[in-house]
């Protein structure tokens, strides 16, 4: 045995992205059988039922808000921005993973994205929908939102202020929502055609047939489709990075201590990816179990997502360290006081809980046995979501409640309606997500077909990563 042989043997190729033994037919029938059936798993019914109760709580909360006004919430001067913007930023952040998985990982040729991109994109849409609730309702008068948010000729003859990050935010988030929906629908068209051709029920066939637009998988169609899809991915990549950058401008353009820092854009984007991957894990782990998708969403997928969570978690933790350093190095008493107040002031519990959730807990992912333990990954992903919510709480509340003048200091206490609106949007999100998995393919069928060994063409680069077979075997 020579030394090169030893070196080659030391390299273990990654496990396949889908379990071996599948054919085009088995992949198609397995994924579409979740939708084209009258059967629903009991756990699906229970989860959707609970989520639907929370959705009704949202309707009650929002209805009451419109009757009474924002006075039912706890925010008041000096903390004028509280749960509404915390929840908005939290949801938008969660939404980032979908486009990241579908666009950036596509451009980077990460074939493991294929089994998770579809429902991550759906998750993006529903998270953006939840996020958009808050700018609409936070004034208590949503019918005025159009007039405040969008540039259109109105009777007062006034226009939005384009030098303000708040209007940039309107454009960034609405563009993001729209482009994500386009990207998602484009990816769905071939799978809708599959459903059209498999549906037994006439009404079902008409609905999917209509949505599939008469797609027939012609070579001409496919090449334009691939052209358009790749361009969409290319455009979504800077878009997804721009969205949370613009959201962070909402804060960093302000002069409040704790907001006015240049670290915010990269720190927010990393936090968004971190929160988003955690939410994908939160959804993927129960869903793969519920519908028996362990063959498609394998341990390799979960492990890769855990690794992305770990890396972005480290970037976020670096952001926290930088904030402390900025406070110290600014030689500015307001900045220094802000950090001191965060760590030891009345909201110190939230700061330390944040450090625990985002700084310490993800470090367990260095250990392979924990990284591949679905129970721990699920718990960890929930802790990360809590941590990211706390991060926004810390940034917003602790910065606002004590700024420059001690005479204008105050405390912020959320009310029942703050919490009910927040949990209500979680209900909306989970309801939409669970309805989605029952009416649309939660895994991209046509892209999974491309991962099968049979899909490769001789004498050309295959779509699968080239596994270097140990040719010295037996030598």
């Amino acid at each position, binding site marked *: 045995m020579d030394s090169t042989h030893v070196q080659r043997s030391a390299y273990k190729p990654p496990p396949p992205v889908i379990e071996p033994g599948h054919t085009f037919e088995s992949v198609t029938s397995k994924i579409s059988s979740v939708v084209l059936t009258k059967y629903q798993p009991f756990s699906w019914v229970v989860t959707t039922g609970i989520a639907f109760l929370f959705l009704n709580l949202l309707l009650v909360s929002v209805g009451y808000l419109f009757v009474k006004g924002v006075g039912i919430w706890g925010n008041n001067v000096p903390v004028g921005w509280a749960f509404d913007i915390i929840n908005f930023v939290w949801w938008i952040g969660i939404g980032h993973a979908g486009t990241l998985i579908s666009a950036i990982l596509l451009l980077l040729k990460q074939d493991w994205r294929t089994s998770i991109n579809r429902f991550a994109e759906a998750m993006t849409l529903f998270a953006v929908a939840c996020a958009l609730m808050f700018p609409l309702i936070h004034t208590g008068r949503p019918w005025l939102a159009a007039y405040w948010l969008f540039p259109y000729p109105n009777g007062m003859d006034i226009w*939005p202020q384009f030098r303000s990050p708040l209007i940039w935010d309107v454009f*960034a988030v609405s*563009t993001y929502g729209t482009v994500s929906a386009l*990207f998602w629908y484009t990816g769905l068209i071939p799978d809708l055609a599959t459903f059209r051709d498999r549906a037994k029920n006439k009404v079902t066939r008409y609905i999917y047939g209509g949505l599939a637009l008469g797609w*027939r998988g012609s*070579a001409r*169609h496919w090449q334009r489709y691939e052209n358009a899809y790749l*361009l969409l991915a290319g455009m979504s990549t800077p878009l997804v990075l721009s969205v949370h950058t613009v959201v962070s401008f909402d804060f960093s353009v302000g002069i409040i201590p704790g907001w006015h820092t240049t670290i915010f854009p990269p720190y927010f984007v990393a936090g968004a990816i971190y929160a988003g991957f955690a939410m994908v894990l939160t959804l993927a782990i129960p869903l793969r179990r519920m519908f028996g998708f362990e063959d498609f969403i394998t341990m390799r997928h979960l492990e890769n997502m855990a690794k992305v969570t770990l890396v972005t978690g480290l970037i976020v933790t670096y952001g926290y360290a930088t904030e402390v350093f900025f406070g110290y190095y600014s030689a500015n008493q307001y900045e220094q006081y802000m950090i001191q107040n965060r760590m030891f002031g009345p909201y110190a519990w939230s700061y330390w809980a944040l450090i625990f959730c985002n700084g310490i807990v993800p470090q367990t992912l260095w250990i392979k046995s924990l990284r591949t333990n679905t129970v721990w990954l699920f718990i960890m992903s929930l802790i990360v979501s809590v941590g990211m919510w706390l991060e926004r709480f810390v940034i917003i509340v602790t910065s606002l409640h004590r700024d420059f003048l001690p005479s204008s200091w105050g405390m912020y206490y959320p009310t029942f309606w703050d919490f009910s609106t927040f949990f209500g949007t979680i209900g909306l999100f989970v309801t939409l997500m669970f309805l989605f998995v029952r009416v649309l393919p939660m895994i991209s069928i046509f892209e999974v077909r491309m991962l099968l060994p049979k*899909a490769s063409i*001789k004498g050309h680069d295959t779509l699968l990563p080239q596994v270097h077979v140990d040719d010295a075997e037996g030598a």
Partner: protein
Amino acid sequence: MPREPVAPKLYGLLAEFEDPQALTDAAKRTYAEGYRKTDAYSPFPIEHVWEALGVEDRPVSFFVLCGGIVGLIAGFGLCYWVSTIAYPLNVGGRPMNSWPSFIPVTFEVTILIASFAAVISMIALNGLPMPYHPVFNVPAFARASQDKFFLAIEATDPKFDRMTTREFLRSLGAKEINEIDA
């Protein structure tokens, strides 16, 4: 009096293949044989097939570029027009045309219009939505969106002949050959 049943016109011949490799090889030989009014149908994109049939075009990229340019001008134009003409407002002594502040909106509108251009041009160039197409008349074609691969030679091709084309498709190793009624 009931009308005489009329034999439907022939749209073309549809050959069925088992895997992408067989379809690619068949597409290459069909092109070499001189057939041009052809199309292949597969449940996922196969680059080699559209290369072999010579049906590749790139107008989607052009429309995306146009969409991007339109979005760029529209986005910046909106900010400029609102801030300097429609509603000039002095904020902290900044110039009316404070262009760096207009970049985020310009960027977002550029991406928005270019993305719409990508999706709409792809759908329109593909002639969709098209609820009816002759190939759907072949019952086996339902598998084209699932696990089977098809090659069609259309009757309008100058080289098309019902018998010889059928023989030719058989020589390509097609599993089954169906006539497509127009």
